[in-house]
């Protein structure tokens, strides 16, 4: 099959970028989208041109490295699917796909389709953990967690940290990412002692990184490869409200 690509090329943060046209005339429906890019890159290199840089690693939808916006949708058109798991059979012969990087002030450009997502790590460092040192915690079964809360915690813990929520949000908000971690830990008794500090610090860090406000568009949930629900954002707000009334 023939696929026309318009790919964002940008040398570095300080250079202007633009969409460049490419055509792959021997794409295979069983290829993943990233394999299509590999294929294109092989060809570019054989022609002495510079390949397209993009982030990728596990290619099975769990590491959260891949980050492409296809025709305006983060991770492309398939629900609950990271772009590494998107196969070309989803497209028709002759289709044109516009490929862009995540765009947000908090995710500065590095090159082509690669951006810097370390802001997420700093949000995590601000409180996305339970302060327990390696050593001798109590026996694992000394802390029972009812199945409902355990399952809820898992649903929120499934976040792969890819940043699609930010990329798709009209406001570039990181609320789904931050809310997911806060909600996971808020559903577990282990997370209780630090819940107030955690939510306040993480929410503050999120703003400091330059992410926008949440306007409840829920586009984040629609593009999330882990299908995290925006109820995590509601939960984050409850936690925040309670935290401020409780902490000194």
């Amino acid at each position: 099959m023939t696929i026309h690509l318009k790919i964002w090329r940008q040398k570095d943060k300080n250079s202007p970028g633009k969409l460049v046209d490419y055509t792959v005339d021997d794409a295979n429906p069983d290829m993943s989208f990233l394999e299509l890019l590999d294929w294109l890159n092989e060809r570019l290199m054989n022609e002495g041109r510079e390949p397209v840089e993009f982030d990728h690693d596990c290619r099975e939808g769990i590491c959260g490295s891949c980050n492409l916006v296809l025709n305006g949708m983060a991770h492309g058109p398939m629900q609950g699917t990271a772009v590494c798991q998107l196969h070309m059979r989803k497209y028709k012969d002759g289709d044109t796909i516009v490929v862009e990087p995540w765009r947000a002030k908090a995710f500065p450009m590095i090159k082509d389709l690669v951006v810097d997502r370390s802001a997420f790590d700093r949000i995590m460092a601000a409180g996305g953990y339970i302060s327990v040192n390696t050593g001798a915690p109590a026996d694992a079964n000394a802390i029972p967690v009812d199945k409902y809360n355990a399952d809820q915690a898992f649903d929120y813990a499934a976040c792969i940290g890819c940043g699609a929520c930010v990329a798709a949000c009209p406001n570039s908000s990181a609320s789904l990412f931050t809310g997911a971690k806060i909600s996971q830990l808020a559903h577990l008794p282990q997370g209780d002692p630090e819940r107030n500090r955690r939510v306040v610090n993480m929410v503050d860090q999120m703003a400091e990184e330059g992410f926008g406000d949440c306007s409840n568009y829920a586009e984040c949930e629609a593009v999330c490869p882990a299908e995290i629900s925006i109820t995590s954002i509601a939960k984050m707000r409850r936690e925040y409200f309670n935290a401020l009334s409780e902490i000194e």
Partner: protein
Amino acid sequence: MTASKNGTLNSKVPEGNLQDKWDNHKNNLRLVNPANKRKFTVLVVGTGLAGASAAASLAELGYNVKAFTILDSPRRAHSIAAQGGINAAKNYPNDGDTVWRLFHDTIKGGDYRSREANVYRLAQVSNSIIDQCVAQGVPFAREYGGLLDNRSFGGAQVSRTFYARGQTGQQLLLGAYSAMMRQVHTGKIELFPRREMLDLVKVDGKARGLVARNLTTGEIERYAGDAVLLCTGGYGNVYYLSTMAKNCNATAVWRCYKRGAQFGNPSFTQIHPTCIPVSGKYQSKLTLMSESLRNDGRVWVPKKKGDNRPPNEIPEEDRDYYLERRYPSFGNLAPRDVSSRSAKYVCDEGRGVGKTGLAVYMDFADSIKRLGVDAIKAKYGNLFAMYEKITAENPYEVPMRIFPAVHFTMGGLWVDYNLSSNIPGLYVLGEANFADHGGNRLGASALMQGLADGYFVVPYTLSDYLAENLHSKKIGTDHEAFEKTEKETMERINKLLSVKGKKTVLDFHRELGELMWDNVGMSRNRKNLEMAIKKIGELRDEFWKDVNIPGENNTLNKYLEYALRVADYMELGELMARDALDREESCGGHFREEHQTEDGEAVRDDEKFSNVSSWEYKGDDKEPVKHTEDLNFEFVTPTQRSYK
């Protein structure tokens, strides 16, 4: 004939009863007092389960830690992709599990090619790992009563596997990552993402630092420390196609090997039987389907060669359920190495299925008939959906096609009981070392080992080394050893960039992978291994003459990163073949066709090969020298595995 030195390696296994070794050892390890801990800097390379857990634990103790990852965030390390679970001898289900039993299963599963003391320690600390992870908020599966759920995995007779849906690796890694980020916040860990260690810096024979390439700017950066911890994972990507992530590589371990660290059992590779088959040349990686599917799926191929009928039109009498036929007592649950090899044989006979002929069927029709679609959906819904996403085939209606794929490497840098390589100050943790899995790893044991090494072993053993070196001189990055190492690294990069040949890195990697898969894969023989060694050498020469690397060094350049890695695979692949050639026996994942019974089962040679082969680098134009460490089985008696 390989030059070899037998029994020259000191494993430093402590004296005493198996049960007491670790405790006794801990009693004797030297400590560093709290005020002195902050004078030490530890460099941790890699942030998977082993690296993240070690970095967090050491920082909590008060050491200064610098942590390096090739990815943009520590959370993306490939430990994240582990599906099945993590073993521990908690015996919560009361089904008779003990530390001894976990130890025994692991050492037997490894076909008696691992160190008793190490494996026992692994089983001992397994319970603390679960406690630690639960305290961190890892959302393990639970029962309605709120207590942790366990399942049986990989044919084990007890239910000792803890799991978090099909994403156990992800949840454990995020637990370790969050512990690590907590220390980043306190300033005890300094994080260096998008950095790739390209060489080890040694001063007076000790590991004192590393040079790394800043993958964003291309700059070569120097980092000095009092010890270096390699937690860089396995080297399965030598085979090009594997279930490893694209960025997993062997460069850090290989560079350390070339600086004198010995490489243990390089040929020990695990090939997992249930992966989604290759669909075409463009294929970039393979995806594993959880082994749990084998509980209900029946594996078969057509009896006749070249039978091209669709699977549902092949009648029962024309099907060969070869695992059930050859291994009546284990059937479809035969161990990973046995199942993988059997699949290869039927495909070699021309009975493979699918477009490429390199696949076998895993059929759920009988289970669906017996249990109903809903029961199958409840058990495997996620996996079936994933399969359909990738292949566009509905496994409820058409049998799955599966094929073996490289999944894990049991070999790695040689380490002693303290996880120290033979270079003082260089520690190797997790899959990067050779230690605990012998010739074959059991399911749900990799996660256990990574976290055991990082949380519960290295914090103790490293303090012993640092205490000894309390008064050694601090080395700065302006030391001549850094200067020299950096220069050599730059030269290697410039040399690669200046080749400006015609073939892409991918072309070379694919060729190497084919050579490795065909000759150093599931089934090996002298003739092919000798041929592979020769051909890898030729391919390597061609690589340095004809590789085409785009762009420059001073920017993000993933194909340059890739080229540096493939350059190292070209050397490592040869060592793997050498080791496979040298080991004249069949054990675990290493199957030598010369050493099998009449009906094709593996034959171990405990007389000659109850040992670790550990290889020492002697120079690019010289053959490596083999050292051996004898494995003395004091507490268990090696038996021949049989799954008939």
